[in-house]
């Protein structure tokens, strides 16, 4: 018989949606028990529009082609000592932050999307999430493989997995993701699928990959290119999720708005480390953090929220504060790491004179006024042989877990501190945004495993900070960290390059 032509939409429906059936022998709510407790109302999963229509055979085929090419480059990279082509050994520290701080998030994304990819009652949404789960597993594994070669020649990569679960500044990205995974399935999708993957990915993933491209890092940038089409799929899924939830029921709108407010604030806090990486750690700059924020958030994000306005969604709360922060956060963060450089898992340094001038040019309203004087002081100290390290442990924000390093945005000489009482205990925050998030769900955020609190409570070994760093964090103090000047990384680099 002459076969009629099936259009892609119908074919995909038959090959996915049509596989599901209505239960007769068990209660479907037992099979999908987590769909209702968040208060989200789904009236009809059939209204879900498949964001991409990939059957498994095509998935295997495309992904295998990408993997083959990617691993051919990895092989060539290590065969030819590709690490010698990075522009400067300082750059490698950005890769260390990526492997210790970001790659384990890809793993959590795999787990989170597997969870919602099992728990959603709608088969269309489920299958899309399952594919993203598999992609995320790809990303963590290919990142480990891309950076495996660096691990052989530089310090600070070797304990990435152990460190991610424990180290003070890594609890910032880690708790961000465990917060999302411990939430209900719909909040997870707004947190990760929409806020993180759709709106913020250009400010997280892209800066690292562009940094790699500008600084001679062939392994990382090739991974970036290879992951690009996966990321594009993830973005369409993130957008479909929010539209679907908003169209399903008007009661969903305030819930979704609350999640958007929360996850944008949490997201901008998380991006502090990217801001610092872009402005201070890339020897060849891509663009300033401020510029990236303006292009990717203010312009692109602004357009998106205009589009979402028809559902009654408004710009995330505290957007006006966030707009001011772009002038400050990268400087405040790098200064904190510079002064705590003995407790970081990577090297720190004073920007070169050219870099200081670049920062002045990119931040005409703030850098010379507030931050250049700090570096001039650090330079004087270093010249006297008195490179400065802070001995105290910083207080952490109960929500974002970043040390209280931020200032009031209208008064950069004044530290920003908030606090609130809950069940007789006082909790401290870096901002109104973080304080609000706590007050919305205090029973969740009192559980935060704050690294500095844990140290004081004796849960991380000790008694000295040095013992904690070497035993509990498994850092090689003085090798993996402190100043890049005189570090084993720098000494080896100079030997490889024949620099006396």
């Amino acid at each position, binding site marked *: *018989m002459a*076969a*009629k032509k*099936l259009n892609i939409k119908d074919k995909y429906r*038959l*090959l996915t949606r*049509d*596989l599901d*059936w209505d239960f*007769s022998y*068990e209660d479907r709510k*037992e*099979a999908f028990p987590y769909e209702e*407790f968040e208060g989200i109302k789904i009236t009809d999963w059939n209204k879900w529009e498949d964001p991409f229509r990939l*059957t*498994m055979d095509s*998935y*295997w085929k495309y*992904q*295998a082609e990408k*993997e083959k090419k990617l691993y051919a480059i990895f092989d060539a990279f290590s*065969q030819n*000592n590709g690490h010698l082509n990075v522009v400067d050994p300082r750059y490698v520290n950005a890769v260390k932050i990526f492997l210790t701080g970001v790659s*384990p998030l890809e*793993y959590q994304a795999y*787990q989170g999307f*597997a969870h919602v990819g*099992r728990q959603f009652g709608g*088969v269309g949404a489920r*299958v899309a999430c*399952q*594919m993203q*789960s*598999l992609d995320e*597993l*790809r990303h963590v*594994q290919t990142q*480990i493989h891309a950076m495996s070669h660096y*691990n*052989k*020649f530089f*310090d600070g*990569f070797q*304990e990435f*997995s*152990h460190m991610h*679960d*424990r180290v003070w500044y890594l609890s910032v990205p*880690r*708790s961000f993701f*465990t*917060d999302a*995974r*411990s939430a*209900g399935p719909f909040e997870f999708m707004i947190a990760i699928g929409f806020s993180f993957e759709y709106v913020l990915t250009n400010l997280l993933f892209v800066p690292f990959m562009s940094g790699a491209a500008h600084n001679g890092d062939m392994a990382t940038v090739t991974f970036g290119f290879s992951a690009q089409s996966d990321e594009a799929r993830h973005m369409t899924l993130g957008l479909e999720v929010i539209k679907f939830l908003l169209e399903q029921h008007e009661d969903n709108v305030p819930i979704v708005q609350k999640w958007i407010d929360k996850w944008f604030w949490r997201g901008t806090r998380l991006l502090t480390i990217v801001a610092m990486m872009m402005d201070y750690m890339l020897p060849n700059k891509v663009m300033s953090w401020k510029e990236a924020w303006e292009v990717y958030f203010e312009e692109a994000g602004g357009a998106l929220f205009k589009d979402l306005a028809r559902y009654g969604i408004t710009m995330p709360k505290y957007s006006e504060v966030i707009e001011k922060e772009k002038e400050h956060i990268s400087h405040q963060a790098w200064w904190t790491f510079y002064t705590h450089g003995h407790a970081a898992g990577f090297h720190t340094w004073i920007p070169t004179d050219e870099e200081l001038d670049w920062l002045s040019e990119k931040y005409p309203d703030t850098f010379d006024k507030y931050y250049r004087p700090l570096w001039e002081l650090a330079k004087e100290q270093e010249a006297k042989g008195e490179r400065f390290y802070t001995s105290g442990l910083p207080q952490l924000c109960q929500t974002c877990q970043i040390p209280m390093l931020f200032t009031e945005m209208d008064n950069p000489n004044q530290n920003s501190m908030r606090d609130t009482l809950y069940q007789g205990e006082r909790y401290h925050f870096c901002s109104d945004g973080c304080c609000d998030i706590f007050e919305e769900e205090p029973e*969740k955020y009192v*559980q*935060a495993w704050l690294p500095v609190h844990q140290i004081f409570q004796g849960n991380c070994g000790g008694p000295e900070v040095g013992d904690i760093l070497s035993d509990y964090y498994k850092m090689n103090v003085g090798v993996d960290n402190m100043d890049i000047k005189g570090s*084993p990384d720098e000494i080896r680099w100079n030997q*490889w390059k024949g620099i006396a």
Partner: protein
Amino acid sequence: MTIEIKTATLEPVRNTFAHIERRFGDKPATRYQEATYDVASEVNFHYRPLWQPEFELNDTGRTAIVMEDWYAFKDPRQFYYGTYVQMRAKQQEVAESNYSFFEKRDLARLIPEEIQRKVIRLLLPLRHVEQAANLNNVYGSSLGYGTAITQALLYNGMDRLGNAQYLSRIGLILDGNSSDSLAEAKRYWMDDAVWQGLRAYCEANICVEDWFESFVAQDVVLDALIYELVYLQFDQWLADNGGQDFSMLTEFIQTWNKDTNRWVDAVVKTATAESDDNKQQLEQWIGNWKAKAIEALAPLAEEMVDAEALNNAVVALDKRLNKAGLFK
């Protein structure tokens, strides 16, 4: 003759990541090792899941199976993402050429009408079983412990979606893309007495809480029986009765089964060898689900082949279980 290109050799500072070195010693590691071992978090999760506050996000307590080291579940295929997709891509290439050969030559026209009806009634509804298997494996992947087993469960879950799609395409070939055969097969799945036992089995397993039990009910018990019954014996019956060309369309699932059985058997063997408690737990689960599966499959087996067919499948399953160290 060999030729040797001189490259600059730099002495590495270390061979691999520290957690890999602690497990396997100071030597270069394989990509499977670096992609798998100790990648999943074990401590300091910050928040209890709102959806299961009795557990941590990653928690060994979600199954009755107890392991000293969950990374003992080494995959004999050593699949990480890259090797996994490349293996499946090769297999789908063969499948694709089979399907297009079948369609181009219109081989369906050579297959007797009653055989086609039999395939619609007895083979196509298995796409829903594959869908259940997708859910059960992804369940284990999301709530299981340690990357060694959870990654393999995700690969398996996605494979099952692929299997369901290949089975669906058989229907679309038979009905000339009208999808009538898929609708008909779904009616059998929903209403025909011959399928209700199996549907009840699938629905019950989807609701099982212990992820390892769900893996046992699906991958160990049901899949083993269906593989023997459908993809070996029914396939042979079809070949003997003018439907031999269907084998071209089920070859993917057959090859896939062989490859997957190696992993399933290795998992069972490892869990059994770990402790007597595990062994007893597995035997109890298997005894229970096997009895249910036999009851569910009996009417199907009789219609597919004959009254003996299911027994042959059970013998094959028992042999595999025995080899893995169970029931002896």
